[in-house]
């Protein structure tokens, strides 16, 4: 049974990755956007901290590593499956008809995209950054191993948030793109994906790191760069995964009949 599920998962991921290449070769444009965003952020960190290292609680090399690794693993820490799109164009019904779990299908599709992106964008980005003198290796071997675990937990929390956002669209009967815009805006700000939480003013970081959004980006990135130890952050991620998954599955179970409202 597990072998069958793995084959289904792997085939869906492969289809998704190859469709990414076949459907739209303009993904290169998206890569250019991401590279430009990284260049802007790197230049801002250098402008802010380069001349006055004491002005920041985090050293410049750690910030640059944080920025590069955040972009390299953007697929995982800004997890976006095709759920919103499936709501919008009505193809969601197809996911219910296939002989595989709905969550598993979206996760597999997303994994296909992620692997494709990692090979074509993230690896070259890490290489270029390393050539430019930015340290892109983990703080230590232990950090690297804990980062892997933390990234898996980040995916679990991100996927749960994604499905909770989808359920909110169902319950509230509001347009999915409205909910999606809010989720993206909140996630970008509160997760620490753009600005490390440790650098935020007013002690905001101390509060935000307890929220589920921080479990998606801040936790793995802080572990990778050695800004914080892993045990507490991984425990927080685990806690959020345990809390959010029953909530996500429950909301879907109780509201799935409303999905038809979005078909067509």
């Amino acid at each position: 049974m597990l072998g069958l599920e793995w084959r289904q998962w792997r085939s869906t991921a492969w289809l998704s990755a190859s469709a990414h290449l076949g459907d739209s070769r303009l993904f290169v444009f998206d890569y250019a956007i991401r590279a430009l965003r990284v260049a802007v952020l790197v230049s801002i960190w250098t402008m802010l901290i380069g001349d006055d290292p004491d002005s920041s609680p985090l050293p410049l090399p750690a910030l640059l590593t944080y920025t590069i690794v955040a972009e390299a693993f953007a697929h995982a820490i800004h997890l976006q499956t095709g759920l919103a799109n499936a709501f919008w164009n009505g193809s969601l019904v197809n996911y219910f008809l296939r002989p595989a779990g709905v969550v598993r299908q979206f996760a597999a599709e997303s994994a296909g995209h992620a692997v494709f992106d990692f090979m074509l964008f993230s690896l070259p980005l890490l290489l270029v950054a390393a050539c430019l003198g930015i340290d892109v290796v983990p703080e230590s071997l232990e950090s690297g191993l804990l980062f892997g675990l933390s990234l898996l937990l980040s995916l679990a929390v991100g996927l749960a948030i994604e499905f909770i956002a989808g359920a909110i669209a169902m319950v509230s009967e509001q347009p999915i793109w409205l909910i999606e815009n809010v989720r993206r805006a909140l996630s970008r700000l509160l997760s620490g994906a753009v600005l490390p939480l440790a650098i935020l003013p007013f002690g905001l970081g101390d509060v935000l790191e307890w929220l589920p959004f921080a479990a998606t980006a801040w936790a793995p990135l802080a572990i990778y760069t050695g800004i914080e130890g892993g045990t507490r952050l991984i425990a927080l991620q685990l806690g959020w995964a345990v809390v959010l998954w029953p909530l996500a599955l429950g909301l879907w179970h109780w509201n799935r009949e409303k999905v038809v409202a979005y078909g067509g």
Partner: protein
Amino acid sequence: MADRIPVGTLRSIVQLVRLLGLYARMDVMWIARARSTAVTFYLAEWVLGFGIVASTWLLAERFDGIGPWSRAQVVFLLGYSLLVRGVVDMLFGWNVAHISRRIGRGQLDHMLLQPVPLWVLVLAEGFSPLSGSGLALSGGVVLWLSGEGLGVFTPALFVLNLLASVAIVIGFSYAWASLAFLAPRAAEEINSSTMDLIDQVRAFPLDGLGPGLLGVLLSVVPIGYVAWLPARSLLGLTDSPWLVWLTPLAAIGIVSIGLSIFGRGMRHYRATGSTRYLALGHRR
């Protein structure tokens, strides 16, 4: 004066005014159809607006400004940036700014079938004074909070720069959208990418970029004109006061290039039509 304007153009302008009224009424009906819709919509817009500017604002608070920009000046930049996005949303909503979606989905035919020039529909169909006003209102409030007024020049120059920035966003968007004439499926969402690019970079002071990258952002990918350069010149942070005219001049060039590329796309479209349009209205 009226005798000098060709009758066709005059008729189009009258049609435009009528259509603007019509689309404004429809927009009011759309947003006011339920209280929950209006409340959710405005809340979502404000959260989105805050999300766009918050990172830069927090950085400015943390470091007491960014480079040559004081905290108040950074807030002015953010307000200006939100206002540009808000005006684009108000005047070019409903996928008129994201025109690649209409082209890619075969929905441009809906516009071409109407007995009205395309430019009139482009200026009218996206008019959404209520549903598109969330970010413009936020931008206005943020500008006011900056305490920098409308900059060191006259209000007319502020408005001119604002409209030029809006025109640059649309010109850039339409130039890239023309790819959807050639590759409707692949380029349907190209304007999502162009708008994402603008949204993600617009709110940052670009002073620290090297000359090469800055040159790119002021030419091929003209995001520097969307907020950074006009805000910088309006605040008097540039070496020469004449630079306040640079964004309006750039707007003329970029809109001309955008229109020229879009016109070539339209000529191609006239020969091929849409490969994705079906009689029942769904796309392949």
